[in-house]
């Protein structure tokens, strides 16, 4: 089937979106950019392909069987089972590589000891995995790296308790191995994983009556061939994308158009990504007319939050909810991310509340964004907030308050898919450019 691909190679995450001939979204994929860029694009693209297959699969079931109750539930089962199947493969790869690391050691005793420890560690992880991938459980992260790290470190800590093995060495093994696992693309094995997922969903989810329909749909989805008619790349690392220059588009334009696509009345866009913050004004057609960006210093970007999260031993997901519990926001004096980290420690030591400090930190980020917005021409109706940080409730709350205080009533849009905005814009350009040819 003909489709168009948009890739947003971000500093922290790489996003891909497939659109069909009618500019309808088919699917989207995301991966972290930590491994090499080309691979990140490949994986994100493949993940978007998988996501598109899910979409087609669902459509097929609806067509065949009519929309019915339980379909949503089934899709959830299918999705988490798919992730589970992938996870199992990834876990196996991780184990293998960890063992390889240990194999290289000289000391035979240590080698043996750690190999055994690792074997039991992975055994425990595997036995837990089944439980981790049930529908309805909030995933801690989209990324293998984050999910597995938690599990691994937990067990490593427990195993190291009696002192026979060192926790630090176990982490060191992990740190090396994970990089290599991230260097592999597991999305290519989608057919196998989808098969497995289909089975698990039917049996474990109790969807036997739908089994036949599902099987047919899955087979169909696996069989679809995507004919990518045009690709446009954008994002922080776009210059390194393995595609010709005319197919590369500035992030500003893509974010503007992406936001316009999601919310057609958008006039002002704020994107807070991992390493840069952009304020964009767009016209009625979604074309950027003015923009400001901040991209030299990590202060005020998503990475700032990531850094703070590391500092507090939390996931970025958890920051927002905690900050939301605050009754007031502490004023943060440091602009520098690293200094803010130190200030955080200092304030904690002085007995200030975690949530209030966090609220202050969120406010600090948003204040920086406000100044960019001001510089780009203010906040006009409607306003769309995109980028990874838009997922953070505390940041959103701070933003809403500051906008209403300074610009009055504004319609504020945030899409749950906001992280894909840039990629959507790129995919739209991909289709429009193709049309123009």
């Amino acid at each position, binding site marked *: 089937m003909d489709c168009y691909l948009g890739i947003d190679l971000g500093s922290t995450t790489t996003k891909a979106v497939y659109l069909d001939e009618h500019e309808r979204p088919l699917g989207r994929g995301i991966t972290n950019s930590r491994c090499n860029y080309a691979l990140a694009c490949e994986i994100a693209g493949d993940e978007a392909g998988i996501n598109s297959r899910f979409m087609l699969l669902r459509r097929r079931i609806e067509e065949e069987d009519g929309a019915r109750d339980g379909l949503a539930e089934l899709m959830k089962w299918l999705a988490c089972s798919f992730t589970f199947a992938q996870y199992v493969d990834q876990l196996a790869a991780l184990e293998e590589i960890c063992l390889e690391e240990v194999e290289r050691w000289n000391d035979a005793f240590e080698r043996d000891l750690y190999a055994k420890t690792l074997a039991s560690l992975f055994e425990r992880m595997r036995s837990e995995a089944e439980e981790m991938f049930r529908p309805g459980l909030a995933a801690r992260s989209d990324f293998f790296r984050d999910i597995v790290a938690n599990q691994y470190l937990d067990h490593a800590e427990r195993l190291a308790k009696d002192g026979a093995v060192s926790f630090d060495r176990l982490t060191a093994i992990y740190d090396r191995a994970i990089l290599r696992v991230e260097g592999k693309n597991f999305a290519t094995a989608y057919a196998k994983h989808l098969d497995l997922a289909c089975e698990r969903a039917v049996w474990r989810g109790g969807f036997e009556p739908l089994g036949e329909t599902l099987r047919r749909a899955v087979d169909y989805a696996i069989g679809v061939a995507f004919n990518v008619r045009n690709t446009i790349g954008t994002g922080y690392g776009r210059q390194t994308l393995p595609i010709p220059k005319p197919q590369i588009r500035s992030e500003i334009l893509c974010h503007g158009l992406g936001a316009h696509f999601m919310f057609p009345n958008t006039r002002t866009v704020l994107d807070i990504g991992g390493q840069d913050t952009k304020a964009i004004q767009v016209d009625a057609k979604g074309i950027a007319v003015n923009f400001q960006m901040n991209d030299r210093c990590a202060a005020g970007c998503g990475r700032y939050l990531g850094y703070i999260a590391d500092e507090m031993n939390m996931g970025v997901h958890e920051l927002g909810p905690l900050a939301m519990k605050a009754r007031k926001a502490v*004023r*943060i*004096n*440091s602009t520098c991310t690293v*200094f803010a980290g130190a200030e955080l420690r200092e304030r904690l030591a002085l007995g200030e509340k975690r949530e209030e400090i966090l609220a202050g930190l969120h406010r600090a980020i948003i*204040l920086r964004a*406000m*100044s960019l917005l*001001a*510089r780009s*021409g*203010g906040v006009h109706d409607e306003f769309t907030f995109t980028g990874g940080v838009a997922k953070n409730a505390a940041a959103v709350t701070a933003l809403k308050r*500051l906008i209403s205080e*300074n610009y009055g009533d504004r319609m504020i849009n945030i899409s749950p898919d906001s992280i894909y905005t840039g990629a959507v814009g790129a995919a739209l350009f991909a289709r429009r450019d193709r049309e123009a040819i």
Partner: protein
Amino acid sequence: MELNDIVRRCEDLYHDLDLTSVKEWKRRTGGKAVGFLPIYVPRETVHAAGALPVGIMGAGDDLEIIRGDAFYQSYICHIPRSTVELGLSGRLDCLDGFLFPAICDVIRNLSGMWKILFPDKYVRYLDVPQNFDERLGGVFYRQELAALFQDLCALTGRPASDEALRRSIEAYNENRRAIAELYRLRAEEPHRVPTYEHYLLMRASNVLEVTEHTALVDAYLAAARRENRPWRDNIRVILTGVFCEQPPLGLIRALEQSGCSIVDDDWVLGARYLREPVAAEGDPLDALVTSYLRRGTPTATRYIDEDAKGEDLIRRVRTLRAEGVIFASPSFCDPALLEAPMLQRALGAEKIPYTAFKFSENSGQLQVIKEQTGAFADSIKLWGAA
């Protein structure tokens, strides 16, 4: 009045970003109010036209800058953004006019911005002369002042009268007298006039009607002399460079806490820019012109092509028995930062110790500055005058 009441009053005025005191004055008197930026404007002309001159010195760290940043790149000092923020948030609406004295390019350009942003207000760029020859710069300045006075009188609807000008000059001479006494007391017994209180008292001159401010200073002087305050083991320093953008209150306190007592400074410099009383007889504009040309403070924004500025600083160090000089410059402030090395070389030649740091009106992290001034005080204390 008790000391505490005076200080509290000044604190209130300092934090009163909405200028409620100015609004009250306008309500009470039915007069107009005219804002001005640092350093020097001849407030006598505003006063004589029947308006209240209101000094705006940024917003310290009391205000979050949201729209002000829309107008300034990161490498421009802070005071114009908070000034714009104050304006755009309506806090300066009670000012019927605004004067932009020639200080530097930033303020100069701000005058044009103000014309665009607030087209309904009276806005004037006041070009003070950099030529101090009476027949040249003097003539030009007199023309400027006359035009300004005409404008102001047109704004208030009062006749432009020499008599009124002379009365205003007298009122400001009184104020200069009180302020000079305040500085004298602090220099003699710094522990009696804590830096923080001194500063707030000076800031009050920005918003109070001049006679009211004079009375406040006099009351403070009386109270401070009565109050028993412990002597402190601090070094005596002169602070320089803060003639335009002002350090936040926290910083002003930190200096004293880190062991430095300020015995002279250039904050709120406009209030004592003219170092002697202005002649209250004869042509009042001529008197103002002469004072400006002859008795103005040799500060960074005044072009002087001889060694006078360094000499003046050294003389003040000597007469006030200062043990060192602190150069506090607003970040990105060309006048202060370009002046400093020249003054420092002059001090160096006389072996007068100094230290220098940068700040901005909303600096929150004072640790580094405190560390530095603390070490400076340490070194003078531990090593004496050597």
